């Protein structure tokens, strides 16, 4: 039966050429859509590893003071005391500018036993863990016992630990040519956006001498804190340190902003492809319908010599599916090149899943488009059809 159908299509390859190329192009478009969808969903499903609600990021802007290190350091300590005394403030930590969902990046190379990777470097304080609600996987977080050590101590995220150490235990090992000691591993922070996979990152402790370089503070406030309090806090900070362009942002707002960078292009892309697919579906439907009308005589004859109406509609559906299969074989050949040639830096599983969904989608589309014309063909009365002939 199947062989017979293939033969039928092959004999009419010239007539079906356009239909095959149309389904082929649709398959490639759908493949792109599902690749995007699967990739973004996989990233979305990764646990975020921290709690951004009720955390504010304070950008101190440009400090309007002399470049004298000590005086700036004193200013930072003063500011810390002022903020800590507010009842609404639960915890605060100075940090480097690359706080979660910010536009800043700070990467550096690190290595262990010949493996070298680039990592995001986050400079944080002891209370950072409390501010963001991080979960420790092994080892310990920073504490005052790290003060004045000869070798600096660092904490890795899971991703960085995996890449550097694999299954090995990382605690107590020296990385970056023996200059820093790993004391802990924390769960990955999905801190770029909900749709970005976590990157390898390391966390270093801000020593008291370096605090003057930090112009970012993360503040965890009590739930339900109002804009009125924010205004009060803004004034307090601004009058403690003289700076321009002081800015307070909520991490949840910053996250929404970052998510938009993925969501808006995706929505536009989906709307456009959605219409394209409706367009194609209508086209396929029309062509199949027309073809069936053209073959009334043939169908009438088949019915007359005893084919049941369901056999007729199955045949037409089968033909449409065989045409789709032709396109999908060619399309899959192209689609498979993506993981093989590593065109984009995406995991192979994403491509394979996307290809699977795209094939399923195309078959479904073709079945839907062929169903009605098939039913119409089945309703042809042999007598009427043959009489016309």
């Amino acid at each position, binding site marked *: 039966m199947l062989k017979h159908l293939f033969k039928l299509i092959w004999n009419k390859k010239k007539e079906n050429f356009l239909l095959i190329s149309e389904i082929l192009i649709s398959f490639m478009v759908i493949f792109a859509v599902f690749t995007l969808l699967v990739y973004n969903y996989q990233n979305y499903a990764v646990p975020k590893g921290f709690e951004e609600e009720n955390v504010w990021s304070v950008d101190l802007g*440009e400090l309007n003071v002399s470049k004298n290190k000590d005086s700036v350091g004193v200013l930072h300590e003063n500011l810390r005391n002022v903020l800590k005394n507010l009842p609404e403030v639960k915890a605060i930590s100075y940090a480097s500018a690359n706080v979660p969902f910010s536009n800043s990046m700070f990467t550096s190379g690190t290595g262990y036993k010949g493996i070298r990777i680039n990592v995001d470097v986050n400079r944080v304080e002891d209370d950072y863990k409390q501010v963001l609600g991080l979960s420790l996987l092994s080892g310990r977080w920073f504490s005052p016992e790290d003060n004045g050590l000869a070798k600096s101590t660092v904490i890795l995220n899971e991703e960085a630990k995996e890449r550097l150490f694999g299954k090995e235990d990382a605690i107590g090992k020296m990385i970056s040519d023996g200059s820093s000691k790993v004391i802990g591993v924390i769960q990955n922070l999905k801190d770029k956006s909900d749709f970005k996979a976590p990157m390898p990152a390391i966390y270093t402790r801000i020593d008291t001498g370096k605090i003057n370089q930090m112009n970012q503070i993360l503040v965890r406030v009590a739930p339900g804190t109002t804009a009125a309090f924010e205004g009060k806090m*803004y004034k307090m900070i601004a009058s403690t340190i003289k700076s321009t362009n002081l800015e*307070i942002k909520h991490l949840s707002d910053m996250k929404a902003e970052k998510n938009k960078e993925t969501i808006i292009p995706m929505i536009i892309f989906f709307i456009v492809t959605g219409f394209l697919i409706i*367009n194609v579906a209508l086209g396929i439907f*029309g062509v199949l319908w027309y073809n069936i009308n053209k073959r009334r005589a043939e169908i009438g004859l088949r019915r007359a010599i005893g084919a049941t109406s369901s056999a007729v509609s199955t045949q037409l559906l089968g033909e449409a599916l065989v045409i789709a299969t032709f396109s999908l074989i060619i399309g899959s050949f192209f689609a498979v090149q993506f993981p093989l040639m590593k065109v984009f830096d995406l995991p192979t599983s994403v491509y394979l899943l996307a290809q699977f969904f795209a094939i399923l989608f195309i078959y479904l589309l073709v079945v839907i488009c062929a169903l009605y014309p098939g039913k119409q063909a089945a309703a042809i009365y042999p007598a009427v059809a043959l009489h016309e002939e």
Partner: protein
Amino acid sequence: MFKNYFKIAIAVLKRRKFFTFISLFGISFTLTILMVLTSFIEVMLSPNYPDVNRDRELFITRVELRSSKEDYTMMGALNFYLVNNFIAKMKTPEKIAMHSNRSTTNAYPNNKKLSVDLMYTNLAFWEVYQFKFLMGKPFSEQQLKNAEQVVVISEDLGNNYFGEGVSALGKEIEFNNLRYKVIGVVKTAPATVFYAASDIYLPYTLDVSTSGGTSLMGSYLVTLLAKSADDLPVMQEEYQQLLKRVPHPEENEELLFSYADTYLESFTRYVLGKGVASGRDQFFLILSAVIFVFLLLPTVNLMNINVSRIMERSSEIGVRKAFGASSRTLVGQFLVENLILTLLGGLMGLFMAMATISILNSSGLIANLDLKINFIVVCYSLLACLVFGLMSGVYPAWRMSKLNVVTALKANN
């Protein structure tokens, strides 16, 4: 003859309403997308309020310092020192506007939080960019010199800060814990005017980062306004000559690169630029490739439908051929019919595009977006219609002209 073709085309369209619907749906939707895209590119690139002189402007947005071993690169906007001591002395530009990168801060009027953008500007900024002053005027030379605490604000900020309909002129506005006097209110610049859009404009003398230092990297951008568009290459050349005189003695900063680019180039260089090449050609190549791929699917679809429709008319074709119509005449007739269909779809697309654009403009997705369908956009769309109609019409017409008279007449009875 064309009148006849037209009559036949309309008759054919009426005959199979379903096919007509599919064709028109495909064409109008495709053209809607193209028109919205064109008007988007239009609003991004062509001169718009307040940047009306864009045709004769060049933008210097960053400097790049590299070590001679090429293993160290640093880039950023320009320092005030570089602008003031070197660029300001250029001869060819008619005017040289300077403004800082847009930076953001908060204001808290009446316990409400506002996020406001601000930038520091010089006097020429107000001449190069033609802001419409709803109230007041820009700061004077005297005010700039004395570093008076005065600001020009956008209409939107005025409404948000002081309330709708309240005159902001002469009032005080507070941010960065300092109070500034509002001396002017301008019509808000749309966010699509990438460099000059802001909520607050201050005299650059209030910027603390302008004092001292000979570092080249800072937070300032420069817009050079030429006397005419012909002067742009001269200006670019003068800027390259000027860079040779700028000292950069530090280690690892032996090579200095910076370019005075047109508006589009200043973006493409950032993403696609390599060395001296601005990446503009590459940008157009990528854009046309995307449009081609986007057009491919609807075109093949339309072709497919056209083939079906034309074969349906095989008896008509057979009769005309039998009476001596040449293949060429038939192909011509079919192409004209197809073009009529496409133009009809294009007209529908135009209305759909207008609706989409007015939705986009009012959605607030991009602040103060002002997409328009103007003459140029319509012309481009008309061109797209023609290309689309020809592309989808040629293959079916060719198939039709190959029809054998006898089979054509016999097939349909």
